[in-house]
Protein backbone atom coordinates (compact mmCIF):
# COMPACT_ATOMS: atom_id res chain seq x y z
CA UNK A 1 0.00 0.00 0.00
CA UNK A 2 2.49 2.71 0.97
CA UNK A 3 4.35 2.37 -2.31
CA UNK A 4 1.16 2.98 -4.17
CA UNK A 5 0.56 6.14 -2.21
CA UNK A 6 4.03 7.37 -2.96
CA UNK A 7 3.36 6.98 -6.65
CA UNK A 8 0.52 9.41 -6.44
CA UNK A 9 1.27 13.04 -7.20
CA UNK A 10 1.52 15.45 -4.35
CA UNK A 11 -0.88 18.36 -4.33
CA UNK A 12 1.87 20.68 -5.41
CA UNK A 13 2.79 18.52 -8.33
CA UNK A 14 -0.75 18.30 -9.54
CA UNK A 15 -1.22 22.03 -9.18
CA UNK A 16 1.87 22.75 -11.25
CA UNK A 17 0.85 20.16 -13.81
CA UNK A 18 -2.46 21.90 -14.07
CA UNK A 19 -0.64 24.95 -15.38
CA UNK A 20 -0.58 27.14 -12.29
CA UNK A 21 2.58 28.93 -11.26
CA UNK A 22 4.30 28.55 -7.93
CA UNK A 23 3.14 32.04 -7.17
CA UNK A 24 -0.47 30.93 -7.65
CA UNK A 25 0.19 28.00 -5.44
CA UNK A 26 1.49 30.20 -2.64
CA UNK A 27 -1.47 32.52 -3.01
CA UNK A 28 -3.69 29.51 -2.72
CA UNK A 29 -1.94 28.39 0.43
CA UNK A 30 -2.36 31.85 1.91
CA UNK A 31 -6.06 31.84 1.12
CA UNK A 32 -6.44 28.47 2.70
CA UNK A 33 -4.64 29.54 5.85
CA UNK A 34 -6.96 32.52 6.08
CA UNK A 35 -10.07 30.40 5.58
CA UNK A 36 -8.93 27.91 8.14
CA UNK A 37 -8.55 30.75 10.57
CA UNK A 38 -4.84 30.10 10.97
CA UNK A 39 -2.11 32.60 11.62
CA UNK A 40 -0.09 33.87 8.69
CA UNK A 41 2.92 31.99 10.01
CA UNK A 42 1.09 28.80 9.18
CA UNK A 43 1.11 29.52 5.44
CA UNK A 44 4.56 27.99 5.13
CA UNK A 45 3.39 24.84 6.84
CA UNK A 46 0.44 24.50 4.54
CA UNK A 47 2.56 25.05 1.45
CA UNK A 48 5.11 22.55 2.70
CA UNK A 49 2.48 20.04 3.54
CA UNK A 50 0.89 20.39 0.11
CA UNK A 51 4.26 19.93 -1.48
CA UNK A 52 4.88 16.71 0.37
CA UNK A 53 1.52 15.09 0.88
CA UNK A 54 0.28 12.82 -1.82
CA UNK A 55 -3.25 13.62 -2.76
CA UNK A 56 -5.92 11.92 -0.73
CA UNK A 57 -8.70 10.20 -2.63
CA UNK A 58 -12.16 11.55 -2.02
CA UNK A 59 -15.51 9.96 -2.57
CA UNK A 60 -18.33 12.44 -2.66
CA UNK A 61 -21.78 10.94 -2.26
CA UNK A 62 -25.07 12.63 -3.05
CA UNK A 63 -28.23 11.44 -1.35
CA UNK A 64 -31.37 13.37 -0.47
CA UNK A 65 -30.22 16.85 -1.36
CA UNK A 66 -30.46 19.71 -3.84
CA UNK A 67 -26.74 19.98 -4.69
CA UNK A 68 -26.57 23.49 -3.27
CA UNK A 69 -23.50 22.43 -1.30
CA UNK A 70 -21.67 21.49 -4.49
CA UNK A 71 -22.87 24.71 -6.08
CA UNK A 72 -21.60 26.72 -3.18
CA UNK A 73 -18.31 24.85 -3.16
CA UNK A 74 -17.46 25.44 -6.82
CA UNK A 75 -18.03 29.14 -6.26
CA UNK A 76 -15.55 29.39 -3.43
CA UNK A 77 -13.30 32.36 -3.60
CA UNK A 78 -10.18 31.36 -5.44
CA UNK A 79 -10.57 29.52 -8.77
CA UNK A 80 -7.71 27.30 -7.81
CA UNK A 81 -9.74 26.03 -4.89
CA UNK A 82 -12.43 24.41 -6.96
CA UNK A 83 -9.95 23.38 -9.58
CA UNK A 84 -7.59 21.74 -7.21
CA UNK A 85 -10.15 20.16 -5.06
CA UNK A 86 -12.54 19.03 -7.73
CA UNK A 87 -10.08 17.99 -10.40
CA UNK A 88 -6.92 17.36 -8.53
CA UNK A 89 -7.64 16.61 -4.96
CA UNK A 90 -9.09 13.65 -6.57
CA UNK A 91 -12.74 13.56 -6.42
CA UNK A 92 -12.62 9.97 -7.37
CA UNK A 93 -16.33 9.67 -7.35
CA UNK A 94 -19.04 12.31 -7.41
CA UNK A 95 -21.97 11.51 -9.53
CA UNK A 96 -22.89 15.06 -10.39
CA UNK A 97 -19.50 16.16 -11.67
CA UNK A 98 -17.64 13.11 -12.91
CA UNK A 99 -17.37 12.27 -16.60
CA UNK A 100 -17.99 8.59 -16.17
CA UNK A 101 -21.48 7.32 -15.62
CA UNK A 102 -23.46 4.17 -15.02
CA UNK A 103 -21.57 0.95 -14.39
CA UNK A 104 -18.27 2.64 -15.16
CA UNK A 105 -18.76 5.18 -12.42
CA UNK A 106 -19.78 2.60 -9.88
CA UNK A 107 -16.81 0.45 -10.82
CA UNK A 108 -14.49 3.42 -10.36
CA UNK A 109 -15.87 4.01 -6.91
CA UNK A 110 -15.49 0.38 -5.97
CA UNK A 111 -11.90 0.45 -7.15
CA UNK A 112 -11.08 3.49 -5.03
CA UNK A 113 -12.75 2.01 -2.01
CA UNK A 114 -10.80 -1.21 -2.31
CA UNK A 115 -7.49 0.32 -3.17
CA UNK A 116 -7.49 3.06 -0.57
CA UNK A 117 -9.34 1.32 2.21
CA UNK A 118 -8.96 3.30 5.40
CA UNK A 119 -7.39 6.25 3.60
CA UNK A 120 -10.04 7.97 1.58
CA UNK A 121 -12.24 10.77 2.79
CA UNK A 122 -15.96 10.31 2.39
CA UNK A 123 -17.91 13.46 1.73
CA UNK A 124 -21.66 13.21 2.07
CA UNK A 125 -24.12 15.66 0.66
CA UNK A 126 -27.68 14.95 1.65
CA UNK A 127 -29.55 13.07 4.30
CA UNK A 128 -30.34 9.40 4.23
CA UNK A 129 -33.96 8.24 4.25
CA UNK A 130 -34.49 5.32 6.59
CA UNK A 131 -38.26 5.10 6.10
CA UNK A 132 -39.70 2.25 4.03
CA UNK A 133 -36.42 0.35 4.00
CA UNK A 134 -34.65 3.35 2.54
CA UNK A 135 -36.42 3.05 -0.77
CA UNK A 136 -36.94 6.79 -1.10
CA UNK A 137 -33.43 7.32 -2.38
CA UNK A 138 -31.67 4.75 -4.52
CA UNK A 139 -28.60 5.05 -6.65
CA UNK A 140 -27.43 2.34 -9.03
CA UNK A 141 -30.02 -0.01 -7.64
CA UNK A 142 -28.92 0.35 -4.04
CA UNK A 143 -30.50 2.33 -1.26
CA UNK A 144 -28.72 5.38 0.07
CA UNK A 145 -28.25 3.69 3.41
CA UNK A 146 -26.61 0.69 1.81
CA UNK A 147 -24.17 2.70 -0.32
CA UNK A 148 -23.42 4.99 2.58
CA UNK A 149 -22.59 2.19 4.99
CA UNK A 150 -20.44 0.57 2.35
CA UNK A 151 -18.50 3.76 1.64
CA UNK A 152 -18.29 4.70 5.31
CA UNK A 153 -16.79 1.36 6.30
CA UNK A 154 -13.46 2.08 4.59
CA UNK A 155 -13.35 5.83 5.08
CA UNK A 156 -10.70 7.53 7.15
CA UNK A 157 -13.09 10.30 8.04
CA UNK A 158 -16.46 11.56 6.91
CA UNK A 159 -17.43 15.09 6.10
CA UNK A 160 -21.13 15.85 6.38
CA UNK A 161 -21.76 18.66 3.94
CA UNK A 162 -24.58 21.01 4.64
CA UNK A 163 -27.62 20.88 6.85
CA UNK A 164 -28.98 17.77 5.10
CA UNK A 165 -26.12 15.53 6.07
CA UNK A 166 -25.57 17.32 9.39
CA UNK A 167 -29.11 17.92 10.61
CA UNK A 168 -31.57 16.50 8.12
CA UNK A 169 -32.65 19.92 6.78
CA UNK A 170 -35.95 20.34 4.93
CA UNK A 171 -36.52 16.66 4.22
CA UNK A 172 -36.37 15.99 7.93
CA UNK A 173 -38.84 18.76 8.75
CA UNK A 174 -42.00 17.52 10.40
CA UNK A 175 -43.55 15.14 9.61
CA UNK A 176 -40.41 13.86 7.88
CA UNK A 177 -42.22 11.47 5.52
CA UNK A 178 -39.12 9.71 4.26
CA UNK A 179 -37.47 9.32 7.65
CA UNK A 180 -34.59 11.53 6.51
CA UNK A 181 -31.70 11.06 8.91
CA UNK A 182 -28.43 12.94 9.31
CA UNK A 183 -25.39 10.74 8.91
CA UNK A 184 -23.97 10.96 12.43
CA UNK A 185 -27.06 9.09 13.58
CA UNK A 186 -26.25 6.22 11.26
CA UNK A 187 -22.51 5.80 11.57
CA UNK A 188 -20.98 6.20 15.01
CA UNK A 189 -17.54 4.69 14.72
CA UNK A 190 -15.93 7.16 12.32
CA UNK A 191 -14.76 10.70 12.85
CA UNK A 192 -17.42 12.95 11.34
CA UNK A 193 -17.05 16.63 10.61
CA UNK A 194 -20.38 18.37 10.43
CA UNK A 195 -20.44 21.40 8.17
CA UNK A 196 -24.03 22.63 8.43
CA UNK A 197 -25.61 25.40 6.39
CA UNK A 198 -28.02 25.47 3.51
CA UNK A 199 -25.63 25.56 1.84
CA UNK A 200 -22.44 25.96 3.85
CA UNK A 201 -20.27 28.86 2.72
CA UNK A 202 -17.98 27.73 -0.13
CA UNK A 203 -14.88 29.05 1.59
CA UNK A 204 -15.82 27.19 4.74
CA UNK A 205 -16.12 23.98 2.77
CA UNK A 206 -12.78 24.60 1.12
CA UNK A 207 -11.22 25.44 4.46
CA UNK A 208 -12.49 22.24 6.04
CA UNK A 209 -11.43 19.96 3.26
CA UNK A 210 -8.06 21.65 2.92
CA UNK A 211 -7.47 21.22 6.59
CA UNK A 212 -8.09 17.53 6.29
CA UNK A 213 -5.92 17.04 3.24
CA UNK A 214 -3.15 19.47 4.16
CA UNK A 215 -2.67 18.31 7.72
CA UNK A 216 -4.00 14.81 7.44
CA UNK A 217 -6.17 15.31 10.50
CA UNK A 218 -9.48 16.82 11.46
CA UNK A 219 -9.77 20.48 12.32
CA UNK A 220 -10.66 21.33 15.91
CA UNK A 221 -14.32 20.50 16.41
CA UNK A 222 -16.86 21.81 18.88
CA UNK A 223 -19.20 19.64 20.91
CA UNK A 224 -21.56 19.28 17.99
CA UNK A 225 -18.75 18.13 15.71
CA UNK A 226 -18.52 21.39 13.79
CA UNK A 227 -15.18 23.01 12.99
CA UNK A 228 -14.59 25.62 15.67
CA UNK A 229 -12.90 28.00 13.27
CA UNK A 230 -16.14 28.50 11.35
CA UNK A 231 -18.91 27.68 13.79
CA UNK A 232 -17.47 29.11 16.99
CA UNK A 233 -19.56 32.27 16.89
CA UNK A 234 -23.16 33.18 16.29
CA UNK A 235 -24.00 35.23 13.22
CA UNK A 236 -25.26 37.75 15.76
CA UNK A 237 -21.85 37.95 17.45
CA UNK A 238 -20.17 39.10 14.26
CA UNK A 239 -23.05 40.97 12.63
CA UNK A 240 -22.30 44.52 11.48
CA UNK A 241 -25.84 45.51 12.55
CA UNK A 242 -25.09 44.51 16.12
CA UNK A 243 -24.63 48.10 17.31
CA UNK A 244 -28.28 48.72 16.38
CA UNK A 245 -29.30 45.68 18.37
CA UNK A 246 -27.41 46.89 21.42
CA UNK A 247 -28.91 50.34 20.94
CA UNK A 248 -32.41 48.89 20.79
CA UNK A 249 -32.95 50.20 17.25
CA UNK A 250 -34.95 47.67 15.28
CA UNK A 251 -36.69 47.50 11.94
CA UNK A 252 -40.37 46.94 12.68
CA UNK A 253 -41.29 45.94 9.13
CA UNK A 254 -39.25 45.38 6.03
CA UNK A 255 -40.41 48.61 4.44
CA UNK A 256 -40.20 51.10 7.27
CA UNK A 257 -37.67 53.89 7.72
CA UNK A 258 -35.81 51.86 10.33
CA UNK A 259 -35.26 49.15 7.82
CA UNK A 260 -33.97 51.70 5.33
CA UNK A 261 -31.66 53.02 8.03
CA UNK A 262 -30.18 49.58 8.26
CA UNK A 263 -31.37 48.85 11.79
CA UNK A 264 -31.20 45.41 13.35
CA UNK A 265 -33.59 42.80 11.94
CA UNK A 266 -34.26 41.04 15.24
CA UNK A 267 -37.95 41.95 15.38
CA UNK A 268 -38.61 40.87 11.83
CA UNK A 269 -37.42 37.42 12.76
CA UNK A 270 -33.64 37.44 12.40
CA UNK A 271 -32.32 34.16 13.80
CA UNK A 272 -28.73 35.38 14.00
CA UNK A 273 -28.78 35.30 17.83
CA UNK A 274 -29.23 31.53 17.78
CA UNK A 275 -27.25 30.60 14.70
CA UNK A 276 -23.64 29.53 14.61
CA UNK A 277 -22.02 30.32 11.27
CA UNK A 278 -19.41 32.52 9.60
CA UNK A 279 -21.77 34.62 7.48
CA UNK A 280 -20.88 37.81 9.31
CA UNK A 281 -17.16 37.43 8.68
CA UNK A 282 -16.51 35.35 5.56
CA UNK A 283 -19.79 36.37 3.91
CA UNK A 284 -21.13 35.00 0.65
CA UNK A 285 -20.38 35.16 -3.07
CA UNK A 286 -16.72 35.85 -2.61
CA UNK A 287 -17.24 38.11 0.36
CA UNK A 288 -19.71 40.40 -1.40
CA UNK A 289 -22.52 40.30 1.13
CA UNK A 290 -24.60 38.08 3.33
CA UNK A 291 -28.34 37.90 3.95
CA UNK A 292 -28.43 40.48 6.73
CA UNK A 293 -26.30 42.90 4.74
CA UNK A 294 -28.80 42.50 1.92
CA UNK A 295 -31.69 43.37 4.23
CA UNK A 296 -33.03 39.93 5.12
CA UNK A 297 -32.77 38.35 8.53
CA UNK A 298 -30.86 35.16 9.09
CA UNK A 299 -33.17 32.17 8.89
CA UNK A 300 -30.91 29.97 10.96
CA UNK A 301 -30.08 27.60 8.11
CA UNK A 302 -27.13 26.02 9.87
CA UNK A 303 -29.00 25.09 13.04
CA UNK A 304 -30.69 21.86 13.98
CA UNK A 305 -34.34 21.57 12.84
CA UNK A 306 -34.18 24.92 11.18
CA UNK A 307 -37.41 24.39 9.29
CA UNK A 308 -39.24 23.60 12.49
CA UNK A 309 -37.85 26.40 14.61
CA UNK A 310 -40.78 28.73 14.10
CA UNK A 311 -41.63 31.38 11.54
CA UNK A 312 -38.81 33.08 9.64
CA UNK A 313 -40.25 36.58 9.91
CA UNK A 314 -41.34 36.75 13.52
CA UNK A 315 -39.70 36.71 16.90
CA UNK A 316 -41.72 34.26 18.90
CA UNK A 317 -40.99 31.36 21.16
CA UNK A 318 -42.44 28.16 19.86
CA UNK A 319 -43.28 25.46 22.31
CA UNK A 320 -40.99 22.57 21.42
CA UNK A 321 -42.74 19.37 20.54
CA UNK A 322 -45.96 21.07 19.43
CA UNK A 323 -46.66 20.68 15.74
CA UNK A 324 -49.06 23.63 15.68
CA UNK A 325 -47.66 27.12 15.66
CA UNK A 326 -48.03 27.53 19.38
CA UNK A 327 -46.58 30.68 20.81
CA UNK A 328 -45.26 30.21 24.34
CA UNK A 329 -46.46 33.66 25.39
CA UNK A 330 -50.01 33.00 24.22
CA UNK A 331 -50.07 29.69 26.05
CA UNK A 332 -48.56 31.39 29.10
CA UNK A 333 -51.17 34.13 29.10
CA UNK A 334 -54.00 31.64 28.74
CA UNK A 335 -52.56 29.53 31.56
CA UNK A 336 -52.24 32.62 33.75
CA UNK A 337 -55.86 33.51 32.98
CA UNK A 338 -57.01 30.03 33.86
CA UNK A 339 -55.06 30.12 37.10
CA UNK A 340 -56.41 33.53 38.12
CA UNK A 341 -59.92 32.26 37.37
CA UNK A 342 -59.21 29.14 39.41
CA UNK A 343 -57.94 31.25 42.29
CA UNK A 344 -61.09 33.36 42.26
CA UNK A 345 -63.25 30.24 42.28
CA UNK A 346 -61.18 28.73 45.07
CA UNK A 347 -61.52 31.88 47.15
CA UNK A 348 -65.28 31.87 46.72
CA UNK A 349 -65.42 28.13 47.41
CA UNK A 350 -63.33 28.56 50.54
CA UNK A 351 -65.58 31.31 51.84
CA UNK A 352 -68.56 29.03 51.46
CA UNK A 353 -67.06 25.77 52.58
CA UNK A 354 -65.12 27.17 55.52
CA UNK A 355 -67.86 29.54 56.65
CA UNK A 356 -68.15 27.92 60.07
CA UNK A 357 -64.45 28.10 60.79
CA UNK A 358 -64.33 31.67 59.55
CA UNK A 359 -67.31 32.81 61.57
CA UNK A 360 -65.89 31.11 64.67
CA UNK A 361 -62.67 32.98 64.12
CA UNK A 362 -64.51 36.23 63.75
CA UNK A 363 -66.64 35.59 66.83
CA UNK A 364 -63.63 34.74 68.90
CA UNK A 365 -61.77 37.77 67.71
CA UNK A 366 -64.75 40.01 68.37
CA UNK A 367 -65.21 38.72 71.89
CA UNK A 368 -61.54 39.31 72.49
CA UNK A 369 -62.00 42.80 71.17
CA UNK A 370 -64.77 43.43 73.68
CA UNK A 371 -62.57 42.24 76.47
CA UNK A 372 -59.77 44.62 75.76
CA UNK A 373 -58.85 46.34 78.99
CA UNK A 374 -58.35 49.94 78.03
Amino acid at each position, binding site marked *: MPTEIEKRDTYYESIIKQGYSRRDFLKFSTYMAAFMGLESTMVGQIAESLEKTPRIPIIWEHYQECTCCSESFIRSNHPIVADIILDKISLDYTLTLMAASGHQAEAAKKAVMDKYKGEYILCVEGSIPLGDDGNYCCIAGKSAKETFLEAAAGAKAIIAWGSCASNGCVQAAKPNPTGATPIHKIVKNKPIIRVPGCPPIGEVMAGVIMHVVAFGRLPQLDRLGRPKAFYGKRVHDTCYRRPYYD*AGLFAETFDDQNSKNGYCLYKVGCKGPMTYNSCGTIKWNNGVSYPIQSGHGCIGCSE*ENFWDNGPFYERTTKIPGFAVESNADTVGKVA*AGVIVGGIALHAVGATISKRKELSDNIKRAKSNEKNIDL
Partner: protein
Amino acid sequence: METRNFKRVFVWELPVRIFHWVNVLCVIVLSLSGFLIANPPALISSAEATNLHSFGIVRFIHFAAAYIFFFNMILRVYWSFVGNKFASWRAFWPFSKKTWSNFKHVLKIDVLLFNEKVHDEKNISIGHNSVAILSYLLLFIVALVSVFTGFALYADTANWWLPKLFAWVTPLFGGDFMVRSIHHIAMWVFILFTLVHVYLVFYHDWLEGRGEVSSMFGGYKFVQEDRLRKAAKAEEAEEKSNKYK
Protein backbone atom coordinates in the same frame (compact mmCIF):
# COMPACT_ATOMS: atom_id res chain seq x y z
CA MET B 1 -66.24 30.22 73.97
CA GLU B 2 -62.64 29.16 74.10
CA THR B 3 -60.12 31.72 72.97
CA ARG B 4 -57.15 30.29 71.26
CA ASN B 5 -53.83 30.96 72.77
CA PHE B 6 -51.15 31.50 70.21
CA LYS B 7 -47.46 31.63 70.91
CA ARG B 8 -45.03 33.51 68.79
CA VAL B 9 -42.54 31.13 67.18
CA PHE B 10 -39.43 32.04 65.28
CA VAL B 11 -39.68 30.18 61.98
CA TRP B 12 -37.86 32.00 59.19
CA GLU B 13 -34.35 33.04 60.10
CA LEU B 14 -32.94 36.23 58.69
CA PRO B 15 -30.91 34.56 55.90
CA VAL B 16 -34.04 32.75 54.76
CA ARG B 17 -35.99 35.98 54.64
CA ILE B 18 -33.21 37.79 52.83
CA PHE B 19 -33.03 34.94 50.34
CA HIS B 20 -36.76 35.09 49.80
CA TRP B 21 -36.92 38.79 49.02
CA VAL B 22 -33.75 38.89 46.95
CA ASN B 23 -35.20 36.00 45.01
CA VAL B 24 -38.48 37.84 44.50
CA LEU B 25 -36.69 40.94 43.25
CA CYS B 26 -34.49 38.90 40.94
CA VAL B 27 -37.38 37.00 39.43
CA ILE B 28 -39.27 40.23 38.82
CA VAL B 29 -36.26 41.93 37.25
CA LEU B 30 -35.33 38.83 35.25
CA SER B 31 -38.85 38.35 33.97
CA LEU B 32 -39.32 41.99 33.00
CA SER B 33 -35.94 42.24 31.30
CA GLY B 34 -36.52 38.79 29.82
CA PHE B 35 -39.76 39.92 28.24
CA LEU B 36 -38.00 42.95 26.83
CA ILE B 37 -35.27 40.76 25.38
CA ALA B 38 -37.80 38.41 23.86
CA ASN B 39 -39.95 41.21 22.50
CA PRO B 40 -38.24 44.58 22.47
CA PRO B 41 -40.54 47.59 22.24
CA ALA B 42 -40.25 49.99 19.34
CA LEU B 43 -37.95 52.79 20.35
CA ILE B 44 -38.76 56.28 19.19
CA SER B 45 -35.36 57.78 18.90
CA SER B 46 -33.38 59.55 16.27
CA ALA B 47 -30.13 59.04 18.14
CA GLU B 48 -27.28 57.31 16.43
CA ALA B 49 -26.55 53.79 17.59
CA THR B 50 -23.21 55.07 18.91
CA ASN B 51 -24.98 57.19 21.48
CA LEU B 52 -27.53 54.64 22.51
CA HIS B 53 -27.14 51.45 24.45
CA SER B 54 -30.65 50.80 25.68
CA PHE B 55 -30.96 47.17 24.67
CA GLY B 56 -27.46 46.48 25.88
CA ILE B 57 -28.50 47.90 29.23
CA VAL B 58 -31.59 45.70 29.39
CA ARG B 59 -29.44 42.68 28.69
CA PHE B 60 -26.88 43.83 31.22
CA ILE B 61 -29.59 44.13 33.86
CA HIS B 62 -30.82 40.66 32.96
CA PHE B 63 -27.37 39.13 33.27
CA ALA B 64 -26.52 41.01 36.46
CA ALA B 65 -29.81 39.90 38.03
CA ALA B 66 -29.12 36.38 36.80
CA TYR B 67 -25.83 36.29 38.69
CA ILE B 68 -27.46 37.57 41.85
CA PHE B 69 -30.29 35.06 41.43
CA PHE B 70 -27.76 32.26 41.02
CA PHE B 71 -25.54 33.15 43.96
CA ASN B 72 -28.57 33.78 46.14
CA MET B 73 -29.77 30.31 45.29
CA ILE B 74 -26.42 28.82 46.24
CA LEU B 75 -26.49 30.62 49.58
CA ARG B 76 -29.96 29.21 50.24
CA VAL B 77 -28.74 25.71 49.50
CA TYR B 78 -25.88 26.31 51.92
CA TRP B 79 -28.33 27.55 54.54
CA SER B 80 -30.35 24.38 54.19
CA PHE B 81 -27.42 22.62 55.85
CA VAL B 82 -26.78 25.06 58.68
CA GLY B 83 -30.13 26.75 59.21
CA ASN B 84 -32.96 25.82 61.59
CA LYS B 85 -35.27 22.88 61.05
CA PHE B 86 -37.68 24.86 58.91
CA ALA B 87 -34.89 25.91 56.58
CA SER B 88 -33.18 22.53 56.52
CA TRP B 89 -33.09 20.37 53.43
CA ARG B 90 -34.79 17.77 55.65
CA ALA B 91 -37.89 19.94 55.63
CA PHE B 92 -37.98 19.52 51.87
CA TRP B 93 -37.53 15.78 51.84
CA PRO B 94 -40.66 14.57 50.07
CA PHE B 95 -40.40 10.82 50.70
CA SER B 96 -41.34 10.48 54.36
CA LYS B 97 -44.61 9.08 55.61
CA LYS B 98 -45.34 12.28 57.49
CA THR B 99 -44.96 14.34 54.34
CA TRP B 100 -47.40 12.16 52.45
CA SER B 101 -50.06 12.10 55.12
CA ASN B 102 -49.77 15.85 55.42
CA PHE B 103 -49.90 16.08 51.64
CA LYS B 104 -53.20 14.23 51.61
CA HIS B 105 -54.50 16.42 54.38
CA VAL B 106 -53.61 19.69 52.66
CA LEU B 107 -54.97 18.43 49.37
CA LYS B 108 -58.27 17.54 50.98
CA ILE B 109 -58.72 20.48 53.31
CA ASP B 110 -56.98 23.38 51.62
CA VAL B 111 -57.10 22.56 47.94
CA LEU B 112 -60.39 20.69 47.62
CA LEU B 113 -61.83 22.61 50.57
CA PHE B 114 -63.42 19.76 52.52
CA ASN B 115 -64.04 20.36 56.20
CA GLU B 116 -62.49 18.26 58.92
CA LYS B 117 -64.73 16.31 61.25
CA VAL B 118 -62.29 16.65 64.10
CA HIS B 119 -59.72 19.35 63.96
CA ASP B 120 -56.24 18.07 64.63
CA GLU B 121 -53.91 20.97 65.22
CA LYS B 122 -50.96 18.75 64.30
CA ASN B 123 -52.07 18.90 60.70
CA ILE B 124 -51.24 22.58 60.59
CA SER B 125 -47.65 22.83 59.48
CA ILE B 126 -45.47 25.26 61.34
CA GLY B 127 -43.00 25.65 58.47
CA HIS B 128 -43.92 24.62 54.95
CA ASN B 129 -46.80 22.28 54.36
CA SER B 130 -46.27 19.27 52.13
CA VAL B 131 -47.94 20.68 49.04
CA ALA B 132 -45.83 23.79 49.37
CA ILE B 133 -42.73 21.61 49.70
CA LEU B 134 -43.47 19.98 46.39
CA SER B 135 -44.08 23.30 44.71
CA TYR B 136 -40.76 24.63 46.01
CA LEU B 137 -38.95 21.56 44.81
CA LEU B 138 -40.53 22.03 41.41
CA LEU B 139 -39.56 25.67 41.44
CA PHE B 140 -36.02 24.79 42.44
CA ILE B 141 -35.77 22.52 39.42
CA VAL B 142 -37.17 25.23 37.17
CA ALA B 143 -34.68 27.68 38.66
CA LEU B 144 -31.92 25.24 37.78
CA VAL B 145 -33.34 24.97 34.27
CA SER B 146 -33.30 28.77 33.98
CA VAL B 147 -29.77 28.97 35.27
CA PHE B 148 -28.45 26.16 33.09
CA THR B 149 -30.13 27.35 29.90
CA GLY B 150 -29.44 31.02 30.68
CA PHE B 151 -25.75 30.51 31.32
CA ALA B 152 -25.55 28.20 28.32
CA LEU B 153 -26.83 31.02 26.11
CA TYR B 154 -24.43 33.37 27.81
CA ALA B 155 -21.40 31.09 27.71
CA ASP B 156 -20.18 31.83 24.22
CA THR B 157 -19.93 35.55 24.76
CA ALA B 158 -18.64 35.38 28.31
CA ASN B 159 -15.04 35.83 29.33
CA TRP B 160 -15.42 34.33 32.75
CA TRP B 161 -15.11 30.62 33.44
CA LEU B 162 -18.30 30.35 35.42
CA PRO B 163 -20.78 30.79 32.54
CA LYS B 164 -18.51 28.68 30.39
CA LEU B 165 -19.07 25.80 32.79
CA PHE B 166 -22.55 25.57 31.32
CA ALA B 167 -21.49 25.42 27.66
CA TRP B 168 -22.24 21.70 27.50
CA VAL B 169 -25.95 22.35 27.92
CA THR B 170 -26.47 23.70 24.39
CA PRO B 171 -25.38 20.56 22.51
CA LEU B 172 -27.82 18.52 24.60
CA PHE B 173 -30.64 20.36 22.89
CA GLY B 174 -29.04 20.54 19.45
CA GLY B 175 -28.52 24.27 19.51
CA ASP B 176 -29.52 27.66 20.84
CA PHE B 177 -33.05 27.57 19.46
CA MET B 178 -34.29 24.91 21.83
CA VAL B 179 -32.26 26.24 24.75
CA ARG B 180 -33.77 29.66 24.28
CA SER B 181 -37.29 28.29 24.01
CA ILE B 182 -36.87 26.30 27.19
CA HIS B 183 -35.41 29.34 28.92
CA HIS B 184 -38.38 31.40 27.85
CA ILE B 185 -40.93 28.78 28.90
CA ALA B 186 -39.24 28.42 32.30
CA MET B 187 -39.98 32.08 32.90
CA TRP B 188 -43.68 31.35 32.50
CA VAL B 189 -43.45 28.63 35.12
CA PHE B 190 -42.10 31.26 37.53
CA ILE B 191 -44.98 33.58 36.74
CA LEU B 192 -47.63 30.88 37.14
CA PHE B 193 -46.01 29.66 40.36
CA THR B 194 -45.98 33.16 41.77
CA LEU B 195 -49.72 33.62 41.18
CA VAL B 196 -50.59 30.45 43.05
CA HIS B 197 -47.97 30.93 45.74
CA VAL B 198 -49.05 34.44 46.67
CA TYR B 199 -52.70 33.46 46.72
CA LEU B 200 -52.09 30.48 48.98
CA VAL B 201 -50.10 32.59 51.42
CA PHE B 202 -53.03 34.97 51.70
CA TYR B 203 -55.44 32.07 51.96
CA HIS B 204 -53.63 30.50 54.90
CA ASP B 205 -53.22 33.80 56.65
CA TRP B 206 -56.91 34.59 56.25
CA LEU B 207 -58.14 31.19 57.39
CA GLU B 208 -55.66 30.28 60.08
CA GLY B 209 -54.70 33.73 61.30
CA ARG B 210 -51.18 32.67 62.20
CA GLY B 211 -49.32 35.51 60.52
CA GLU B 212 -48.45 33.65 57.34
CA VAL B 213 -47.96 36.85 55.35
CA SER B 214 -45.93 38.72 57.93
CA SER B 215 -43.81 35.69 58.72
CA MET B 216 -41.60 36.40 55.72
CA PHE B 217 -40.93 39.86 57.14
CA GLY B 218 -40.46 39.32 60.86
CA GLY B 219 -39.78 35.62 60.77
CA TYR B 220 -42.51 34.76 63.31
CA LYS B 221 -45.53 32.58 63.02
CA PHE B 222 -48.11 31.84 65.68
CA VAL B 223 -48.59 28.36 67.04
CA GLN B 224 -51.17 26.91 69.44
CA GLU B 225 -49.85 26.98 72.95
CA ASP B 226 -50.73 23.40 73.93
CA ARG B 227 -49.02 22.12 70.84
CA LEU B 228 -45.95 24.01 71.71
CA ARG B 229 -45.60 22.54 75.15
CA LYS B 230 -45.64 19.06 73.80
CA ALA B 231 -43.14 20.03 71.19
CA ALA B 232 -41.03 21.80 73.77
CA LYS B 233 -41.04 18.70 75.94
CA ALA B 234 -40.09 16.55 73.06
CA GLU B 235 -37.33 18.90 72.19
CA GLU B 236 -36.04 18.95 75.74
CA ALA B 237 -35.99 15.19 75.74
CA GLU B 238 -34.19 15.17 72.46
CA GLU B 239 -31.64 17.64 73.69
CA LYS B 240 -31.01 15.51 76.73
CA SER B 241 -30.58 12.37 74.74
CA ASN B 242 -28.25 14.22 72.41
CA LYS B 243 -26.13 15.29 75.34
CA TYR B 244 -25.58 11.75 76.47
CA LYS B 245 -24.76 10.47 73.05
